[in-house]
């Protein structure tokens, strides 16, 4: 099934507006999936500003959109500068190696350890973005 063109355009706009954009299940405050929670944990440790989109309200339509844009249909998905970096496995691996810090121009924490206890909610974090069903 082809992606909804309006939704696809909305996603492209968000990708243009957010240097770091996470498509996740749930919100950073209340992740609904362990993999999404782990990616949020990495971003919090990096301390980068990021946008987060909860995919659950529009899960299947968004799968079609990311399938067309990035050939990837599972969530979470982290995008940097409009390009798909990966899901949980890749994000954690690139965090530990320092590649993610480099890519997002963040400072690598002294002890980069995926799955480490999460620091309290970061005030830099932008509020969850809403994609409305039209």
């Amino acid at each position, binding site marked *: 099934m082809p992606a909804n063109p309006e939704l696809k355009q909305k996603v492209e706009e968000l990708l243009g507006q957010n240097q770091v954009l996470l498509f996740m299940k749930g919100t950073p405050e209340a992740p609904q999936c362990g993999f999404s929670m782990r990616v949020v944990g990495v971003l919090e440790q990096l301390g980068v500003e990021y946008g987060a989109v909860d995919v659950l309200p529009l899960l299947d339509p968004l799968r079609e959109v990311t399938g067309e844009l990035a*050939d*990837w249909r599972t969530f979470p998905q982290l995008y940097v500068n409009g390009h798909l*970096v*990966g899901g949980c*496995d*890749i994000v954690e*691996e*690139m965090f530990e190696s320092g590649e993610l810090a480099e890519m997002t121009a963040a400072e690598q924490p002294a002890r980069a350890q995926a799955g480490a206890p999460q620091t309290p909610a970061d005030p830099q974090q932008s509020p969850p973005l809403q994609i409305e069903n039209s």
Partner: protein
Amino acid sequence: MADLAEVKGMIEEALPGAEVEVVDETGSGDHLRATVRAPQFAGKSRIDQHRLVRAAVQPRMDDGSIHALSIKTDVFDPGG
């Protein structure tokens, strides 16, 4: 439930010369972890490396025999 040997073979066929390990992560036979070191990964981003592995096993994802596949990739360097 996936046949681990078949899945391993599908990846090896798609990426000749690769070192492939496929393990059953949960004992249920449908949550697999593939560790792949392939010469074809050189110069590719992680996501592109994962795309190659996923594409190789896509038929078993589509038919539901693999429910979740965790992938770990590395560039295979015969000299290193």
